[in-house]
């Protein structure tokens, strides 16, 4: 396959997200402007100007009309996907990190970092149908976990919120009361910071990637550990194929060590694993720095990766990918 290289960002990528139809790809980077691309040919459709800091995460509504972004400028913003206009700004007292729309797009979860003595927090916001009626009040605020919360997503039927972050523990919270329901086991769980978390297409299980050089597959209701994928590099990003039983892990050595070693030693490939057998299928090379973001097209026929090198690489699979046997 010949990947499409998209060089719209001037700083390292942080997050990638496809819309539900798989025709748009949203990219966030440490420069201040999230960008939307056509997912088939990589053409740039537009940019969302307004943030004043690194943008860490984004999510798009099911009808692809609204985008939410979380940024280090201590705000999360709602955008009109089509025009790039700002609809609303949620202001916080510390940098916003993860954002996720609930099923139905009526609620959104936003996490904020620990900052100037403030602990990290998970905020649940009501999202109004009409942006002019939008308010900044939190429906619920959860505090408790130590350290940064790198990802928070909604559980089945919006009943739970799943969070993971620097303390290497995956937690499931009740989304109505804010009570802690489950916590991952210290023995079997991750040993270092969890950097990424992604749900399966049917939301029955989810995958976490960690700097302890492994990725783990969990049941979304019982939080039982299903599988572990061991690799030889810190994992910064994970993705699951919606079509085949494949998981993809991206990462590489710490960005600060990149220039001091040979590029082959960096292990910047996206590694494909068989989801069931936990065996490595192959690697896709190309980035000149660690991979920070991975996303699968909802049709499972292409995937994109974003790296510390500022490039988004969009890969359309060759036909023989769909017949790989172990």
């Amino acid at each position, binding site marked *: *396959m010949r990947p*499409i290289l998209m060089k719209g960002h001037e700083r390292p990528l942080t997050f990638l997200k496809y819309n539900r139809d798989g025709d748009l790809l949203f990219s966030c980077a440490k420069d201040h402007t999230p960008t939307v691309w056509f997912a088939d*040919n990589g053409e740039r459709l537009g940019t969302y*100007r307004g943030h004043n800091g690194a943008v860490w995460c984004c999510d798009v509504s099911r009808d692809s009309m609204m985008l939410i972004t979380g940024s280090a400028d201590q705000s999360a913003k709602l955008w009109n996907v*089509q025009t790039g206009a700002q609809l609303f700004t949620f202001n916080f007292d510390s940098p916003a990190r993860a954002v996720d729309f609930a099923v139905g797009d009526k609620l959104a979860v936003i996490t904020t970092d620990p900052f100037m003595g403030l602990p990290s927090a998970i905020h649940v916001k009501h999202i109004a149908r009409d942006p002019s009626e939008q308010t900044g009040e939190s429906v619920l605020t959860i505090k408790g976990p130590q350290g940064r919360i790198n990802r928070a997503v909604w559980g089945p039927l919006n009943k739970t919120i799943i969070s993971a972050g620097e303390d290497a523990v995956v937690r499931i919270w009740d989304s109505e009361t804010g009570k802690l329901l489950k916590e991952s086991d210290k023995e079997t769980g991750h040993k270092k910071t969890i950097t990424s978390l992604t749900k399966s297409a049917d939301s029955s299980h989810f995958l976490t990637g960690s700097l302890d050089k492994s990725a783990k597959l969990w049941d979304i209701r019982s939080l039982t550990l299903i599988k572990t994928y061991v690799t030889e590099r810190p994992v910064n990003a994970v993705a699951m194929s919606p079509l085949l039983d494949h998981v993809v892990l991206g990462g590489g050595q710490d960005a600060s060590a990149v220039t001091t070693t040979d590029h082959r030693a960096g292990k910047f490939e996206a590694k494909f694993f068989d989801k069931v057998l936990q065996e490595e*299928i192959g690697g896709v090379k190309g980035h000149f720095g660690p991979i920070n973001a991975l996303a699968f097209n909802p*049709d499972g026929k292409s995937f994109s990766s974003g790296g510390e090198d500022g490039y988004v690489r969009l890969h359309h*699979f060759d036909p023989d990918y769909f017949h790989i046997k172990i």
Partner: protein
Amino acid sequence: MGVDMAPAQSNKLRWGEMEEDEGEDLEFLLPPRQEIGPDENGVKKVVEYKFNDEGNKVKITTTTRIRKLASARLSKRAVERRSWPKFGDAVHEDVGSRLTMVSTEEIILERPRAPGSKSEETKVAGDPLAQIGKAGAVLMVCRTCGKKGDHWTSRCPYKDLAQPSEGFIDKPPASEVPTVTSGPSKGSYVPPGMRPGAERTGTDMRRRNEENSVRVTNLSEDTREADLHELFRTFGSVSRVYVAVDQKTGMSRGFGFVNFVNKEDAEKAINKLNGYGYDNLILRVEWAAPRAN
């Protein structure tokens, strides 16, 4: 520097005033933008004119090839989104910005081992070991950890642990050190050509690569690098596959090169595949001749 400045000064008064000058709209002096094509190959030419920093008129010709992608099933909403106007920074994007490019390099999903069998893998690994037995263990010296006769540099188990500086400077193995360190003092820069053992490994490597390069001609037009890799992989580990591609049409020019890690594998491939019918053409496989220059 002063000489460079002279012609610029005739055009512009001072570099400090450049910014005001840019605001001045001279665009009406430029010929209009031209679009030619796309022709039957899908090659489209866009000719644009603009002023560069020195105020000179520059003609920019951008040649692009338009390809129809395989018809994908798209929802009505997605088709509608396709015609959305650009917004934000994307509005002012000109053809020359080249934000989106197709990689010139064919990327394959690299399998950790050949899908054929495990036994082949062990055989390949065994081969260099067998060679060493004959040639004497001196040949196989790991440049990363300096161990002799145990493994090749590329297979060094201590690759990640090694100090970066050690991996960078071609250090001779510990046993050879006393004879050579007399020259430069420790820590000072040693040019690659002066490093002990460097010249030898350099020529060695070049010769080896030339020897193990196989030229494949009379390929069909739609043979891709992945196909060649598939075809030649059965003979042993392949280090590089290249198919010459016409820049304009994107079609294969009908020949390519395959580099093998082991010479024996390359030989085997030539014996087996020369005259082999592939895609209704008869392949010609031979040793690649070194370039005339």
